[in-house]
């Protein structure tokens, strides 16, 4: 597969539903979806449903850069998948968030960011694989 995957995770001392809902709350997004150190998010908006879009404006100095994406999957309180359009990822990318209760309390949050090296790979990923896997899932269960 010619994609570029980054996986990271963090344990957060907060209940899973709170961590989950933070990702669909525009006020919370404006507080943590920082593009980098020392930058700000002057505005964020969310349509919290599958097919809905979110938009975040990031600001560095006097320059504003819009980011956005579409929600592909929202499973309360287990998983969110959204596409991520940013200036650094010309062909777009997909972010998957997996939320689990941590044994020690709080939430284990896993983030998988898949970038696409080119359009065909992206289209396969977003379209083809999803339906192939869904069919496979149906066959196996």
């Amino acid at each position, binding site marked *: 597969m010619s994609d570029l995957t980054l996986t*990271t995770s963090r344990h957060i001392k*907060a209940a899973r539903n709170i961590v989950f809902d933070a990702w669909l709350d525009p006020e919370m997004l404006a507080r943590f979806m920082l593009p980098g150190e020392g930058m700000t998010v002057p505005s964020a908006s969310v349509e919290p449903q599958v097919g809905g879009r979110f938009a975040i404006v990031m600001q560095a100095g006097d320059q504003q850069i819009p980011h956005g994406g579409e929600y592909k999957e929202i499973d309360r309180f287990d998983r969110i998948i959204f596409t991520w359009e940013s200036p650094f990822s010309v062909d777009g990318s997909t972010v998957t968030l997996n939320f689990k209760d941590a044994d020690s309390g709080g939430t284990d*949050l896993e983030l998988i960011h898949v970038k696409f090296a080119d359009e065909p790979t992206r289209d396969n990923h977003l379209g083809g694989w999803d339906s192939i896997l869904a069919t496979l899932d149906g066959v196996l269960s």
Partner: protein
Amino acid sequence: MVDYYSTAPMIARMVEQEPDTRQLSNVLKAVSDPTRRSILTQLVQEGHIRVTDIAAYFDMSLNSVSKHIKVLEAAGLVSRQTMGRTHLISANMEPVSLIDEWFTQLRSVWDIRLEKLDSVLTEKNQNE
């Protein structure tokens, strides 16, 4: 879709705006040389050392040592004192924190965001 090429000037400006950028470059340049690293190690371990003693220890000409010391001074890693005709130098480790800070910030933007989410939610917990 976001215009990729229009953001290049913003990114260049982000790097310029870091006030410590030039000093960080000077520090990294200073420690990029193994002889200078050895000199710095000696200074940190021994405290004040005479410039002439450094030259003797490293079996270098006074001229060569002076060149290295100038680079270390430009980075703020070394300071000079004169006591009569004796020139002493000592190490100043503060600029090393610039390297630490840079390395700490050198992580994925998603790690930065998850860390921020963590602190926002944790402080929220404390306030409720």
